[in-house]
């Protein structure tokens, strides 16, 4: 059968059930905002404990990553993320979950070629392109510094 792909694609797009974008955005805002508030509270706690600002910042990330790893291991994180969408994806929790979940999953293919090789199957691009962008920025910054 010859299907008019363009026409069919438009028809499918027009008639398909849409994501409830407003509801999704509200949930993403509330949950994403809440995670940042938890981060802010942790920051305040570590500063209160007389830890330096730089170390406190790192500890906030580490704490949030730990909580995410725990929730992912317990099988709770994906139930929250199903509702939160970008609300859990965008904060550091999304990054941590994308490292922990392949680790759990690919253990069945062994610790080296399974877990070890596939741990960055989702988060890898983030580290790669983040680092590459920062190196590029470094080169530009370095050259600018030479001439200024």
């Amino acid at each position, binding site marked *: 059968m010859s299907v008019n792909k*363009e026409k*069919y694609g438009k028809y499918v797009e027009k008639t398909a059930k849409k994501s409830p974008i407003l509801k999704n955005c509200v949930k993403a805002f509330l949950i994403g905002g809440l995670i940042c508030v938890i981060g802010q509270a942790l920051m305040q706690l570590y500063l209160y404990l007389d830890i330096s600002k730089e170390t406190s910042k790192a500890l906030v990330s580490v704490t949030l990553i730990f909580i995410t790893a725990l929730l992912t291991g317990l099988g709770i994180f994906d139930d929250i993320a199903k509702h939160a969408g970008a609300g859990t994806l965008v904060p550091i929790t*999304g990054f941590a979950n994308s490292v922990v*979940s392949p680790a759990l999953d*690919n253990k069945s293919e062994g610790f080296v070629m399974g877990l070890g090789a596939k741990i960055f*199957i989702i988060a890898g691009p983030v580290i790669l392109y983040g680092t590459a962008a920062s190196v590029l920025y470094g080169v530009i910054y370095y050259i600018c510094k030479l001439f200024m």
Partner: protein
Amino acid sequence: MRRASYRKMTITMIIKLKNSPVITCFSCVGGKEERKGPLGDKLDFYDETDRFDKNTWEKAESEMQRRVFNHLLSKRDLKATDVDILIAGDLINQCTSSSYGLLSFDIPYFGIYGACSTAALGLALGGILCDGGYVKRAAVVTSSHFCSAERQFRFPLEYGSQRTPTSQHTATAAGAFFVESSGSGAYIDEVLFGITVDAGIADANNMGAAMAPAAVDTLVKYFRESGTGPESFDLIVTGDLGYEGHRIVTEMMLQLGYDMKNVYNDCGLMLYDRQKQDMHAGASGCGCSAFAMAASILPDIISGKYKNVLFLGSGALLSQASVLQGENIPGVVHLVKLSHREG
């Protein structure tokens, strides 16, 4: 009724099985969500953990096949040596769920891949082999497992992501069937193998839309060649088009002059309570139609509730690589005509 002109038929495509091959016996197994669904109490057995006492999801799926086939044998009090051929398939790379699951049975093994159309493809092939007198008893086994499919086609299980309303949930289920050259049960009268249709859909979260044109193609060819229409059947059921695909097929068929409204259902809509179980557009997978057939449709044909049924197995022919390379998702739909016969 106005029926739009369709491509002229030049060759006979419907394969008529004149020697009455028959689906005599069947068995089905499911997981946690399948048990919770409307057909849950029709399962022969289930496992609340979906693990079937195995330590990986792939092994769990194989174990489902092994157990469901064992159960089928025990239902008829048969031994493996009483079966002439095993036709089996699943969704996992190279159909390993089937080959490993059925490894312990010394029966000639015929592994097939038709994506989610595998149940229909297997029944069709079994029917042809029995009809031709090549075998007396064929067994058809298919399975899918949400966790193994998710790992292969999407994300790790614990990865937090949001599904779109058009996405479908791979059923954790397996079905096994005996097709025999004689006996009583649901008779396989005709088979029509579908062509692969690329409708231009590349969204793996809307496989119903990707497969719907293939279903329309096969159905219209069948109606035109056999001179029948939706009114000739008590039930027309597709494999796993889900809510989206079901709606599209209904609309496209109506445009072509075939009103399907009163006879058309989809196995993907039968497995779950979509609202309560949060299943978006419904079920999919090789196990989806196998489960629905074994749990509900075949018993209803045998009881006489349905006299004439068209079963269309629908498959979305995608792989991880094809999706990442931006390829469209072709669909294929195979048709099996089943009937009830008195006494």
